[in-house]
């Protein structure tokens, strides 16, 4: 320590790196454009590997589900007569076909509900690692025409918004994320409200619905869609249904919860709306 490395001790490198980090933090909070180049490069290199890992994970997940399903079926089998086996097979066949039919129906519905917006399909290939945030990585990027602030939908409802774009992938912040706030309105009355993500509330499958005027015509089970005033979200995208609306203690506003139409825990493919909301409207 005294002779050999008098110039560069770990202590000094640590201090330098801390300063680098702080500078990067400041730079990247001031301008989002600075980091997009670096991000894109790294992303392009790692993308195929990430995709592969995601597929392996999905495969194992599916297999495990299959195994547990098989167990269920076997347990039930023990209780039933052998004669029923044939019938059950028949039923299973129909169920499969029905499921197929359902998914076709769903696809049709989705297209019917947003006929005006051009969309691109994308798969989710990664999720934020730190358990705190609900951002996901999709396998479409700048090369497919994706850009920041594009809206993302699935299962007929709003999923979130693109927050960063790389050449072959993009990060989407979902509406259940802690940082996320979306302006909403009731389809029936046009009264506005704010939909806010919250990890704790989402545990029960819900989001927070707040900042409604006391007299606003929003009650339980009302359809909530994105409003016209938002600068980021396209108007008229279904978010979910109002629930448990109660008056606030200040007696000026009321708030409640919102059940999203999208099932975020079983999300693997989404549609990205390639039309951006015009800036400066609000």
């Amino acid at each position, binding site marked *: 320590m005294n002779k050999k490395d008098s110039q560069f001790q*770990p*202590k000094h*490198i*640590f201090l330098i*790196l*801390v300063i*680098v*980090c*702080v*500078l*990067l*933090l400041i*730079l*990247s*909070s001031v301008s989002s454009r600075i*980091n997009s180049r*670096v*991000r894109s490069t*790294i*992303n392009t290199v*790692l993308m195929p*590997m*990430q*995709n592969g*890992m*995601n*597929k*392996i*994970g*999905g495969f*194992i*997940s599916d297999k*495990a*589900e299959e195994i547990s399903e098989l167990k269920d079926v076997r347990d039930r089998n023990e209780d039933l007569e052998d004669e029923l086996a044939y019938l059950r097979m028949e039923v299973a066949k129909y169920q499969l076909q029905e499921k197929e039919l359902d998914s076709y129906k769903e696809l049709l519905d989705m297209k019917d509900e947003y006929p005006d917006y051009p969309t691109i399909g994308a798969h989710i*290939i*990664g*999720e*934020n*690692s*730190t*358990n*705190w*945030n609900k*951002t996901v*990585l999709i396998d479409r990027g700048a090369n497919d025409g994706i850009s920041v602030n594009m809206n993302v939908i699935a299962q007929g409802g709003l999923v979130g918004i693109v*927050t960063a774009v790389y050449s072959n992938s993009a*990060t989407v912040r979902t509406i259940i994320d*802690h*940082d996320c706030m979306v302006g909403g309105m009731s389809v029936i009355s046009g009264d506005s409200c704010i939909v806010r993500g919250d*990890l*704790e509330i989402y*545990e029960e499958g819900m989001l927070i619905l707040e900042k409604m005027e006391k007299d606003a015509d929003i009650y339980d089970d009302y359809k909530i869609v994105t409003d016209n005033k938002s600068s980021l979200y396209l108007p008229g995208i279904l978010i979910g249904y109002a629930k448990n609306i109660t008056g606030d203690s200040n007696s000026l506003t009321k708030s409640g919860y919102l059940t999203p139409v999208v099932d975020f*825990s*079983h999300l693997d493919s989404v549609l990205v709306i390639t039309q951006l909301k015009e800036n400066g409207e609000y």
Partner: protein
Amino acid sequence: MKRIIAYILLILAAFMLQNNFFAAIKWIDCTPNLLLIITFMFGLIRGKLDGMLIGFASGLLTDFFFGARIGYYALIYMAIGYGNGIIGGLFYMESSLPVVLLGLMSDFIFNIYVFLTGFLLKGASGFGYYLKKIILPEMVYTLLLVLILYKPVKALSEWLEKTEKKKAKKFV
């Protein structure tokens, strides 16, 4: 050189396991923080310099993909690598209990950092909820993985050291 390649491969593997592989498995709600475990272990075994460099690279990688700001995760991962380097230099860790405790502490500090900077400032209400839902499950993973991974990582580190020494001898 070999060491650097090994580190890069380890970090990339951990990153992808954490973000792509575990994320795809739907019944895992909470993913283990592998990058943190690697950072902490190499800090402890190899010292301040290795710990903080691995931490810095791991954090930066996370920042590039998921961070709203670059440098946010790099800072904490790096600090954890460095801190464990200091502790590793002070004590000789033979039994696994202090190692596990240090791992848990590192994980706890990491999560407290995220909570304080990212959540408390925005008015998140109950710390108890986040402790129960995120911090404790992650610490359980950390506990298990430290127990499983510490010996292999140490062996890998020793093997790298040996090959480096051999090379050094050749040149002398």
